[in-house]
């Protein structure tokens, strides 16, 4: 099943995805973050929150595009979800395949390790002491994952654990399943 997923996601990336210049993408995201830093006057916590909000709005729409392109059905377990997110989702939109690791024993939390982060090419965090400790440059990804999974009835908490831009040796995201959201009932029914 894993080979099948990988082959089909490679195929979708090659044939059905519109491509844009990578530098344009990186520079656009970079100027968004730089402008937010200027607007919030270096309050990095607010910048992180704003990036997550933007990511959430992206995620709730992105998931429909993802479902339309890949035609995947419901995942049977959270482990399946993790595999689909990393091997198909990230591949189709960013052309990277993060690794899924660090499962907790109850199977509700896992980590995604990104070997390369196209959002952060050529980026160096500014030299004031707080940026390296407080700013999560790629925080938009946390919002995207949160929003996308919420639209398929999974409430998750997503956080960055480490980031190469901060000097850590790898970029790691931690996803924790909070609960399954129930389908809505029409008004007036039990």
């Amino acid at each position, binding site marked *: 099943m894993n080979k099948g997923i990988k082959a089909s996601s490679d195929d979708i990336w090659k044939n059905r995805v519109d491509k844009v210049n990578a530098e344009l993408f990186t520079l656009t995201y970079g100027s968004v973050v730089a402008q937010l830093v200027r607007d919030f006057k270096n309050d990095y916590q607010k910048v992180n929150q704003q990036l997550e909000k933007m990511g959430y*709005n992206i995620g*709730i*729409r992105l*998931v*429909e*595009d993802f*479902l*339309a*392109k890949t*035609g*995947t*059905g*419901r995942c*049977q377990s959270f482990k399946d979800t993790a595999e689909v997110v990393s091997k198909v989702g990230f591949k189709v939109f960013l052309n990277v395949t993060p690794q899924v690791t660090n499962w907790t024993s109850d199977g509700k939390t896992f980590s995604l390790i990104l070997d390369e982060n196209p959002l952060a090419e050529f980026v160096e965090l500014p030299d004031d002491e707080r940026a390296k400790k407080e700013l999560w440059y790629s925080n938009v990804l946390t919002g995207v994952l949160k929003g996308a999974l919420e*639209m*398929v*009835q999974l409430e998750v908490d997503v956080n960055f654990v480490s980031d190469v831009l901060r000097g850590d040796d790898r970029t790691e995201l931690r996803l924790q399943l909070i609960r399954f959201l129930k*389908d*809505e*009932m*029409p*008004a007036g029914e039990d």
Partner: protein
Amino acid sequence: MTIFSFWIFDRHCNCIYSREWTQVLNPATESSGTINAKANEDNAKLLFGVLFSLRNIARKVGDTPEQENTLNSFATAKYRAHFYESPSGLRLCILSDLETQNLQTQLRDVYSNIYVEHIVKNPLSPVDFKPGSKITNQRFIRLVDRYLGPQ
């Protein structure tokens, strides 16, 4: 293959689009019918109720861990209703004549190529429709007519 009507329900159980096609003598020159008519509100609720209940029955009886059981279609004496639900909770329904057996591909096509392209990717159209508001995007309506309407 004649298609009588097309309905979209969102994940909050509201009808966000309804399109009916009436029979015309000369389909090449005009296509008529109603779009989002008020009178259809009650029909929409009834139709949604049926679809929702049947879908729940499909899930409860016949669901296995390997593959979820989903509602495909049901038929009455005069028409057949075809149903598709995306994992994100969007429900599409087409009422067609009895001869058409399977419209799943068409439903999937409308979802991926028309709905996702023009409603989801349009930043000015809301993700969650307020109860009572409908899709009024002209391009969407035109494309659906072209794809599903009488040729």
